[in-house]
């Protein structure tokens, strides 16, 4: 999108990054409708872009560490991170927090489950001898996310992190069931603990919630429609903070304004 410049956006690519093979590869996959591969552990990289904020003319050199999602789970479960990651956190001024709706693990209590069983008119099971020991992977998603945010924001005192942009990805899957869904309301309903945390700490850092679908739909079910756009960027769905249609740079622009 930054390279093509064919859609009104809030950022402009000032110059090509010196090392650009990684980002060109994933961009090529995206425009061609090929699945963009997940970042695996050990293959993390950092993308450096020189950007111009069009509204102000300000030039900003931005560093986007592309980190495997598993790394964040290990941080939560093992309670440690690498020294080089520590340096990144110490210098970060903003966070892009990605949430994939279909992988949100809710809090499931026995009381609620038994209520459901009763409503369905089923007989509950007898007392079970099963005894599953607690482990980190059983923790609800919203608790993990709050904990990770706290680890990052509280890491330096005072924190440099002033803005958190929450990206609810694959927003097309949310819209499929609720076409009028609003990202902030979705977060409040689906991850209420995280929503409360963001609102309550507004004096320390600002937060906004965006619904984003970089693909614009399912490549399996809707590839022909998606790939028929003359401008690939017009596939993009983004909702939140009155951003321009398809302007996927909007969350980054907002972070850069801190």
């Amino acid at each position, binding site marked *: 999108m930054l390279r093509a410049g064919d859609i009104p956006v809030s950022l402009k690519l000032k110059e090509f990054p010196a090392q650009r093979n990684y980002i060109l590869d994933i961009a090529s996959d995206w425009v061609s409708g090929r699945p963009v591969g997940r970042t695996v552990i050990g293959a993390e990289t950092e993308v450096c872009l020189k950007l111009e904020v069009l509204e102000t003319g300000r030039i900003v050199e931005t560093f986007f560490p592309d980190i495997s999602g598993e790394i964040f789970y290990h*941080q939560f479960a093992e*309670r*440690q*991170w*690498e*020294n*080089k*990651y*520590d340096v990144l956190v110490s210098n970060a001024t903003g966070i892009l927090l990605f949430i994939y709706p279909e992988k949100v693990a809710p*809090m*499931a*209590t*026995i*009381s609620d*489950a*038994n*209520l459901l069983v*009763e409503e369905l008119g089923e007989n*509950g*099971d*007898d*007392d*079970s001898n*099963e*005894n*599953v020991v*607690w482990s*980190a992977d*059983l*923790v*609800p998603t*919203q*608790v993990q996310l*709050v*904990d990770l945010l*706290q*680890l990052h924001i509280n890491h330096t005192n005072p924190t440099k992190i002033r803005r958190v942009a929450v990206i609810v990805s694959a927003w097309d899957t949310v819209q499929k069931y609720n076409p009028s869904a609003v990202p902030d309301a979705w977060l409040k309903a689906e991850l*209420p*603990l995280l929503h*409360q*945390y963001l*609102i*309550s*700490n*507004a004096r320390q850092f600002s937060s906004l919630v965006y619904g984003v679908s970089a693909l614009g739909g399912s490549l399996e079910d809707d590839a022909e429609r998606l790939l028929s756009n003359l401008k690939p960027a017009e596939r993009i769905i983004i909702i939140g903070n009155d951003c321009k249609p398809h302007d996927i740079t909007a969350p980054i622009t907002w972070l850069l304004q801190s």
Partner: protein
Amino acid sequence: MSELGLSKCKKNDCTIDTDGKCLEGFSEVEECPNFFYNEQAQALEDDSSSGLLADSAEAESMIILPDGLGLSFSAAAKVTRANLTRVIVLAGAVGSGKTTLLSSIYERFQEDPFLGYKFAGSLSLIGFEQICHLSRVASGKVRPDTERTKQGSEKFLHLRVHSDNLEKHLQDLLFSDISGETFRLACESTEECQRLEFLKRADHLVLFIDGEKLALNNKRQEAFADADVLIRSCIEAGMIGNRTFLEVLFSKYDIFGEVKKDKQTAEFVQYIERTLRENYEDKLACLKFFKIAARPNQASKLESSYGLEDVFPFWVEGTPLYTQTRKYPAKQVDNIKREFDKYSIKQS
């Protein structure tokens, strides 16, 4: 035993301060009843316990992060030094519902703001998740339960809240998670009671009376006696007094409240309230009574955390700090040298 070691043990042949291994075999060394910190090195440990480079055979050095569990006494002291904090000590017999109440409050916040407050953070998210585990489907159980707090594993669970209208400041809360066995020992001995130094720092002492026992003829007197003896022990040991807010919670109201045709239970509850007021109200800053059901059974149709609508806001907003000037008897001032001392269980 090294005088310079951070970790110390009352047993002379324990090597905890040299190789980190507990002679009694506790993997979590703070669970060992013989373990205590070397006070001279405590400040150094507090400043450097997180952010340390972990020993690792791997090329990349790792930074240790806060463990997210319950806070030790020293870590709790750091919170109160940094922020305006309410210390809420939950006391009562084994199985009276202390930990269940904590898990209930935490789970309500996972669903929505609770009783006019929004969740604003917690240093103990892992600790809360662990105490809630047996109430979750993932535990494999079919009836919700709460794991008993082990003696020697005493800690504080931290919660930060913000009023719903966001007008007030953030409020930190420290809830003690202490075994009923510890309080039983405090009832039996003045010395044991005086080891519970954190009682002096408590903004609220919350005393649980087990409602399940109140509903039984052969258990109710014992339940009342346990509570009465604990209050008296704490007062006579100088651990609570006219600077203490005491809330008596009749727990498991879904059980004893259902005994509608049994007038004896209702009358006995009134008798308890009357007697405790007569005996102690003039010795405390405040004495209140509540009936609660933290995790009511389905048949009762009561909502989760029933009865907390008056209690929780009082914990957040109320403190004896401004009710009257704090005056410590001279001997108590000498014993409280540091903020840390207010949170410790004094080693005998």
